[in-house]
């Protein structure tokens, strides 16, 4: 388990102090795929880099399975870092070394038995499906292949945690999908906790169990991806969700164009399957006009959004909203 408590970190930029991380506390359970999302400059990468002490912190603690990594130095710190793999936006492969040498690198540093290195590298290459590239140099690989090599290298020493700093941000959408699939598979097969920093809500939607939304060095909202998708509280969370393609375009709907009440319905999992619209019409004296709708597939379930116009007496409309919220367990929000 990774437990971050009251973490603070400031940078000195041209004489100005910038609070990169402002009193952040966060708990990441073993086996989670935890997303940290935010706009650039929000402090998400800095937060991630504190976890393996690529950045020193000003105050607070980061405990990894009970060991406070912020207090460690030199040899003990290096030993702890060896339990944490990391992948990067620009892959950071050794350009002058082959795929084989790149993956063997952490093994050699970790004094892995020499005669077993070759087998281990082959096993990893099979896992990431790049056996035929064993003698290639990074410059001969595509972006997706480079990231696969980087992933194989990061997990070669069987770490318990894998950090991804914008690991898919430099890749095209279909390659991103294949890398995400690989990460999901690693999480599933090897029970490695994955913490991934991203600015793409797609990534969070596709593979994360939980997500923290970071803004100005603070976590403005965190929880399971389902929670954030069904009832985002912060403006940033809303913006990220609406950034997804095919999402409800609230901006386009001008409430003054309609006579009735515009209501945004968010439903999760089973409630998505109920015929709620015909339910409403039958039970209450209201008309329902569907303005827009969509459904997002998440890691564990589905989240649907529907924007409807409810036409009728105020009282009937209020009753229908209460009914939706209390009986159908749907989040209804009057826009």
């Amino acid at each position, binding site marked *: 388990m990774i437990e971050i408590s009251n973490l603070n970190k400031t940078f000195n930029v041209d004489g100005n102090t910038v609070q990169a991380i402002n009193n952040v506390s966060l708990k990441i359970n073993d086996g989670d795929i935890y997303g940290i999302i935010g706009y650039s400059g929000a402090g998400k990468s800095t937060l991630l880099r504190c976890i393996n002490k690529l950045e020193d912190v000003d105050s607070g603690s980061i405990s990894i399975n009970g060991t406070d990594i912020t207090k460690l130095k030199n040899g003990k710190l290096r030993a702890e*870092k060896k339990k944490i793999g990391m992948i990067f936006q620009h*892959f950071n492969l*050794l350009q002058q070394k*082959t795929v084989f040498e790149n993956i063997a*690198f952490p093994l050699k*540093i970790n004094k892995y038995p020499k005669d077993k290195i070759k087998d281990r590298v082959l096993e990893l290459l099979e896992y990431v499906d790049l056996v035929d590239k064993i003698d290639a140099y990074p410059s001969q690989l595509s972006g997706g292949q480079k990231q696969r090599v980087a992933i194989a290298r990061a997990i070669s020493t069987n770490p318990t945690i894998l950090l991804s700093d914008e690991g898919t941000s430099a890749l095209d959408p279909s390659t991103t999908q294949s890398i995400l699939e690989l990460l999901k598979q690693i999480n599933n097969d090897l029970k490695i906790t994955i913490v991934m920093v991203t600015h793409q809500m797609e990534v969070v939607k596709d593979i994360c169990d939980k997500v923290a939304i970071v803004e100005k060095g603070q976590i403005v909202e965190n929880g399971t991806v389902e929670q954030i998708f069904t009832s985002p509280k912060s403006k940033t969370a809303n913006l990220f969700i609406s950034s997804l393609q095919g999402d409800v375009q609230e901006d386009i709907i001008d409430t003054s164009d309609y006579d009735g009440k515009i209501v945004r319905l968010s439903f999760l999992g089973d409630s998505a399957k109920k015929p709620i619209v015909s339910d409403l019409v039958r039970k209450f004296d209201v008309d329902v006009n569907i303005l827009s709708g969509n459904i997002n597939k998440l890691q564990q379930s589905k989240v649907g959004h529907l924007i409807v116009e409810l036409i009728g007496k105020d009282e009937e409309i209020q009753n229908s909203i209460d009914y939706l919220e209390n009986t159908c367990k749907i989040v209804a929000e009057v826009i």
Partner: protein
Amino acid sequence: MLELLIPSILETLYMVSVSTLIALVIGFPLGIILVMTEKGGLSENLLVNNILNFIINLLRSIPFIILIILIFPLSKLLVGTMIGTTATIVPLAISAAPFVARVMETSLKEVDKGVVEFGVSMGASNFEIISKILVPEALPSIISSITLTIINLISYSAMAGMVGGGGLGNLALQYGYYRTDKAILYAAVIVIILMVQAFQLAGDKLAKSVNKK
């Protein structure tokens, strides 16, 4: 003419190769220290960095011909004489060492910060980062830097010939200038040009062949 040229060529090669080796032994670690101690470096130490920078700049600002004279007592102390090829190696090495430190620093700085960060993130020690990441990644550029050093030293060794060193410079001076034997003068110049071309060509080829980027 050949009986004059060949010993001079060998002397020049001897002076250049030994002084290159010494300059590398001194300058290479200094270049590494410069990169490690600079602001944001792996073991940032601005005091060490500033002092080292000052000394390197100081040595580099002394014209070579004056350095030779300044260093006469040291040459005498180290090799027992102030003239001849072996004595010339001392000022050559001392003038080339800070140059090597500077070009090595530049070569090492060219290495992508990301791969160094990868080393830090996976728990490699500073020594492992230098020996297994920084230097191998910078190798093509390091080879180019060594080529540059050798070519500089060929030209400096010719200059050293003027003040009692041996080699092609001395040959050109003694026979070409004092005895006005134009043939020897031109021959010495042509050999020096060919030598520079050959080292440059070989250095470029080698740098290119080891570069996998």
